[in-house]
């Protein structure tokens, strides 16, 4: 490394006037990003604003049509990821690149193994990984298999992978999207530790709270264009969201008082077995949801919410209990019959349950209604009708994609995948909407949109059952809050009369109330 140039430029990486085109799209249009040495620099933008493309350019996955990249003031050519690695650039991808059946240590050294006569030399590697994990406060179990450890731990493995390769420019691609609130706190601390040790961090995110908390500067992109770079301490969440979306965004949902009427869903002492341990995941849960209200089940991830929803929607069989929808006992109904009885379901995991990723957008749009006479005749799909329907939904819900209705679902951004699911489920016009973490991993614009939609549905007399892990969403959106802790409903709260702190105490199991289900 040339000492003089290293001192000469305050920027460790500069991407100047980068332009990258795809057929029909300018994904990056004259974007400039300058990363100072030893700073945490946030890259902010909506889903599809061009953040990932820009990072792919930096990582050598794409070649830009225009612009140049400089490291320490010197122009460099990055033709493939190997070049990026040689320049000590490392990246933690949003979806981890780990081998499930390998141990943590094996994953860290994979691709950079020491060998002697063709045999792995792991002793030295083990020592180095141990030293790194202590230095940066990255607690891991080196011999555990990836498939057995939590997502937060897997992310630490990814970070160690970069450190093991002596990377000093670290890219985090939406690292908090997959984490629980506690893990997010830990990650923020890790990032600060890394910064203190002189690493430069590029932090891609659309979560304003985290950006405000951890970053030094923010660069904002919108629709492939460079909007500006600001010092974090001189800006506000409101200003950032305005830069990102291009208009003022309501961070808090506007809604009137709920006017609940008839009961739509009534659940009586529902108990669901756990797949992980011997105890029941859901214990004796009773609740009801009425027309015109949003009832939210809050709780920390893994307290039985998933199992509860699966039992409610028919994906799993409950051990005992009764589910009544519009006065009909649907406990024994199979999934299709249940959903036709009046239930929409925005699932928790959009890739596992929500979409068939190999299908096109339009095929996914009719996933819940392809069998209706409108879309088929004598078993033959009416393609023109499917197309027309999908185009309608795409326009109504502003689902953006490269090729419209025929875009493969897999190639769409997470936010637009989620919008597609929300569009499909809300358009079914069912009396009950079960929405599980409907805004997970979305940017403020999309969150605002989905929240508005849910409130609108409520005002049209729908019963909405929301399951959420985000405190802000719980407080903003719901008319009643039920807190689930270890499979039980431990409290019913009124969002207007409670505080985030009190809610947190219930969620952590420190507080509980005896309650009777409202009839």
């Amino acid at each position, binding site marked *: 490394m040339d000492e003089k140039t290293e001192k000469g430029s305050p920027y460790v990486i500069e991407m100047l006037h980068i332009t990258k085109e795809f057929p029909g799209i300018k994904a990056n249009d004259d974007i400039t990003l300058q990363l100072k040495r030893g700073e945490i620099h946030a890259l902010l933008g909506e889903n599809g604003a061009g953040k990932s493309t820009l990072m792919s350019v930096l990582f050598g996955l794409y070649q830009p049509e225009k612009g140049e990249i400089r490291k320490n003031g010197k122009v460099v050519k990055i033709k493939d990821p190997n070049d990026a690695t040689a320049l000590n650039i490392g990246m933690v991808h949003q979806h981890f690149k780990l081998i499930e059946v390998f141990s943590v240590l094996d994953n860290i050294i994979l691709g950079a193994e020491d060998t002697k006569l063709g045999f792995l030399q792991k002793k030295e590697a083990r020592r180095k990984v141990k030293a790194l994990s202590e230095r940066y406060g990255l607690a891991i179990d080196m011999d555990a298999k990836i498939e057995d450890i939590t997502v937060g731990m897997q992310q630490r493995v990814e970070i160690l992978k970069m450190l093991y390769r002596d990377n000093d420019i670290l890219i985090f691609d939406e690292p908090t999207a997959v984490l629980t609130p506690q893990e997010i706190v830990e990650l923020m601390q890790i990032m600060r530790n890394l910064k203190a040790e002189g690493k430069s961090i590029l932090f891609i995110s659309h979560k304003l709270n985290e950006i405000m908390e951890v970053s030094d500067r923010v660069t904002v992109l919108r629709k492939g264009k460079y909007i500006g770079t600001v010092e974090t301490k001189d800006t506000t969440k409101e200003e950032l969201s305005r830069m990102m979306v291009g208009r003022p965004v309501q961070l808090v949902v506007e809604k009137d008082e709920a006017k609940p009427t008839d009961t739509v869903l009534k659940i009586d002492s529902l108990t669901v077995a756990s797949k992980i341990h011997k105890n029941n995941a859901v214990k004796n849960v009773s609740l009801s949801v009425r027309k015109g209200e949003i009832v939210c089940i809050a709780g920390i991830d893994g307290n039985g919410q998933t199992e509860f929803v699966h039992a409610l929607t028919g994906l799993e069989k409950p051990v005992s209990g009764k589910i009544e929808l519009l006065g009909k006992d649907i406990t024994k109904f199979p999934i299709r019959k249940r959903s036709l009885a009046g239930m929409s379901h925005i699932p928790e995991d959009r890739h596992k349950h*929500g979409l*068939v990723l190999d299908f096109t957008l339009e095929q996914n749009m009719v996933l819940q209604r392809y069998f209706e006479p409108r879309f088929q005749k004598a078993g033959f799909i009416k393609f023109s009708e499917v197309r027309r329907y999908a185009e309608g939904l795409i326009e109504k819900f502003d689902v953006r994609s490269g090729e419209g209705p025929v875009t493969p679902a897999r190639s769409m951004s997470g936010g637009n995948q989620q919008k597609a699911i929300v569009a499909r489920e809300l358009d079914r016009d069912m009396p009950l909407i079960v929405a599980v973490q409907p805004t997970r991993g979305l940017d403020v614009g999309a969150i605002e949109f989905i929240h508005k939609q849910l409130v609108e549905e409520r005002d049209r007399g729908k019963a909405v059952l929301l399951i959420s892990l985000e405190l802000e969403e719980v407080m903003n959106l719901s008319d009643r809050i039920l807190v689930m802790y270890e499979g039980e409903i431990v409290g019913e709260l009124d969002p207007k009369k409670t505080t985030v702190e009190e809610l947190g105490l219930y969620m952590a199991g420190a507080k509980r109330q005896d309650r009777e289900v409202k009839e």
Partner: protein
Amino acid sequence: MKFRKFLNKNGTRSLLATLISILIGLIAGAITILLVGIFDQKLGLREAWKGIRLIFFGLFSDGVDKAGNLLFGFNTTNIGDMLFRATPIIMTGLSVSLAYKTGLFNIGASGQFLAGTTAALFLALKIPTTVVPAWIVWIIAFLGGMLAGALWGALPGLMKAFLNINEVLACIMTNWLAANIVTWVFEGSGLQCTEGTKTQVIWKTAHNGVSNPKFGLDKLLPGSSQVDGGIIIAIIFAVLVYILLTKTTLGYELKACGSNRHAARYAGIRDKRSIVLSMAIAGALAGLGGTLYYLSGTTEFHWQTYMALPGEGFTGIAVALLGACNPIANIFTGMFLSTLDVAGSKLSFFTEYNEYITDVIIAVIVYLSAFSLFIKLKITKWLKIKEPSKLGKPEEIKAPPAENTRKEGEA
């Protein structure tokens, strides 16, 4: 520019990949022939040259003249043979393709083929044509073979759906079950159709006067080939499978279940039923392969040889993969592989070579067809290098289109 667009189409690239696989396979075959020719004193370069020409143009081989030179020309017997031999492998190819498109790997086509063969032969030989008209017996045997294949395919499907047993393992098991059951059934059947000087007991449905309709193909392609209406039926089935997979709600369900069982379940599709159904339909297709082949009337069935598994099932995998599991493409890949088969027999007729050299070619092509995805990727890359800015693979695009409906405020 139009040409570029055409090249950039997914289907075009698949086709190119297949054609490249085939070409490399044929060249590998030619090299094998050359090498064998050079190192074998009996053969020499002259024979090798004959062999190479037969590999490429065997379908148009028209015997030899008095001097031993090869003659080429349009020969209806060859074409007929090619079509006849294509029939069973098109069917097993369809079987593998349909399973593959619905997320299953059917290597049980051999067993299903045998199950179909057994049922069809039994029905065609046991129902006396003196009582029941031959064409009704044919229909019964046809349906029987189809059902037997479906049953044999449904078994691994059931095991996968309800016991979560990998269908590949279950298929290996059902294959050998079929091979042994066939032996057992025919040994104790009391059905004997000995013919002239042949010492083995053989089964031929012509003994009972039952055979596939010809649909005039024997007149269209005069000669001594065995060609019959089987090929027409196979083509009809290819079209039916294509329609099933792309145009129907059933195909939609099967494919949804195949590519994401969880999402299919979420949408209320009965995932277990779909898996069993996919395998049963795949089994029916493979069973029909055996049925159509042996209901030709003149094909001899020797059960003793079925201590081993019939090759048609595995050739079906080659047919399917080479055609990128597209049912329509399977018609052509099936015909192509049977063309090689014909070329192989010409090779042993007119040269000193062994016909099994064509198996080398087929093996190379099958290997390469498994690599066809890789070749496809290479083609994509190569095209990209030629014109980097215009040819992004659509799958890689994450950005939104330039036109969008969101109202633009001021920044």
